[in-house]
């Protein structure tokens, strides 16, 4: 006989994945608003942000209710703790998408600084990390979660490369400072999205294996 608690956990997971898909879509649209200079995409991101915020509150309520009423243990407890943390990370990813969309609307008012080469690579990487961290949650796949952690360094390297490149453009031509500075912000936001995906992957590993892999340099007793 299936317990209603398990049904509640499954429903919670589905709601979290729905939130994840909204956050993923927001990131994708925001980045394409920059890359393709599509203003309507940026507007869509701003409009849809509320949906992510609402679901964040709903998920928090569900987690709190299950903790209080079911007093879960072991894997169930780790799952609820992971969901609660992932909920926060997804909401922040939604916020980063909004920041990128706002930058996009400002960038559009100026000529393009340079052809976009590293930015699409960086955003594909970060979007892939978000997608795979959520897939790892669905499948309980620790290897996939670890692969997300490993990709974070690549995103950081691309950000540094972009920063250097944009700085050179700004030094050479002060007319591009405004647009270049906005692109710096976009790169920074994409890099933060990668960090949130990393957090999600760490939470998946904690939920599945009971291992806390955050801050590996710390001596855990």
């Amino acid at each position: 006989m299936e317990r209603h608690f398990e049904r509640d956990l499954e429903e919670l997971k589905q709601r979290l994945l729905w939130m994840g898909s909204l956050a993923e879509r927001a990131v994708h649209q925001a980045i394409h608003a920059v890359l393709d200079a599509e203003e309507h995409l940026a507007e869509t991101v701003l409009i849809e942000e509320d949906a992510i915020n609402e679901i964040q509150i709903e998920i928090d309520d569900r987690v709190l209710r299950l903790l209080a009423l079911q007093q879960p243990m072991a894997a169930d407890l780790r799952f609820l703790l992971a969901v609660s943390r992932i909920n926060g990370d997804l909401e922040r990813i939604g916020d980063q998408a909004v920041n990128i969309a706002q930058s996009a609307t400002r960038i559009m008012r100026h000529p393009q600084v340079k052809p976009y080469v590293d930015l699409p690579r960086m955003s594909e990487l970060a979007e892939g990390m978000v997608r795979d961290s959520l897939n790892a949650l669905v499948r309980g796949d620790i290897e996939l979660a670890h692969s997300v952690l490993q990709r974070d360094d690549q995103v950081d390297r691309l950000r540094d490369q972009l920063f250097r490149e944009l700085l050179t453009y700004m030094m050479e031509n002060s007319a591009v400072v405004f647009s270049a500075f906005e692109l710096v912000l976009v790169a920074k936001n994409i890099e933060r999205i990668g960090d949130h995906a990393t957090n999600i992957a760490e939470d998946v590993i904690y939920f599945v294996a009971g291992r806390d892999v955050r801050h590996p340099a710390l001596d855990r007793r």
Partner: protein
Amino acid sequence: MPSISQGSNATAARLAPQMRMNEPRSMAAEKEAPVRFQISDLNFFYGPKQAVFGLNLNIPKNKVTALIGPSGCGKSTFLRTLNRMNEIIRNTRVEGEILLDGQEIHSMDVVSLRRRVGMVFQRPNPFPKSIFENVAYGLRINGYKGRLDDLVESSLHRAALWDEVKDYLHKSAFALSGGQQQRLCIARALAVNPEVLLLDEPCSALDPVTTAKIEELLFHLKDSCTMAIVTHNMQQAARASDFTAFMLDGKLIEHSETSKLFTTPADPRTEAYITGRFG
């Protein structure tokens, strides 16, 4: 900017020192805790039926060890082997070694063993006597020559019952509520100053407020006593114990620090039991 309500601040302030106190200690330190009971290769039989199989377990001194597992898994039987209470059941047999502070309990005088290893049962079982006499009884039969009044009072204090009964010491113990009767039984067990207290589902017949009192009592008794508690209540095991042992079909499946067992159990059978997926 939204401000945190005063209530939340007060709660945070109340919780903060406790959080610091509850910081996890090193695993090594826990493992180094002196051992009160050392149980090796323990088998127990009711006639031809074996109830405990090859059990090995150390019960650390001045800690609470919880025994959990489904009904009939042998946890109460195991608990009763620790002060040889099973010997009052006919046709039972025990094999293996149980050392109390390094001394084999089966070669000890059973009365002195039970004075050192007290027991509290599921249902409160006060004697049909006054509150005072219930606590004094063990002292009298052990030939205690000191001032009974003082020891009765200190035992009732240790069992967190004194304030509720100090004006009614000569009333019948049966006039007390269930929770008070259970604490009276604990006071009675404590009066002879046992080194170990065995508790067999001591809260199963009690309401949550009384249960909280007993759990608080266990926490404070750790200074002077080693405790082993059988419970069906997972939350109670999690709240009240330092170590937890999970038994299934007469075998010890897993034994570890309570904080570890209830968050990241090592054995899938423990996981299934504590998450309510079997048993």
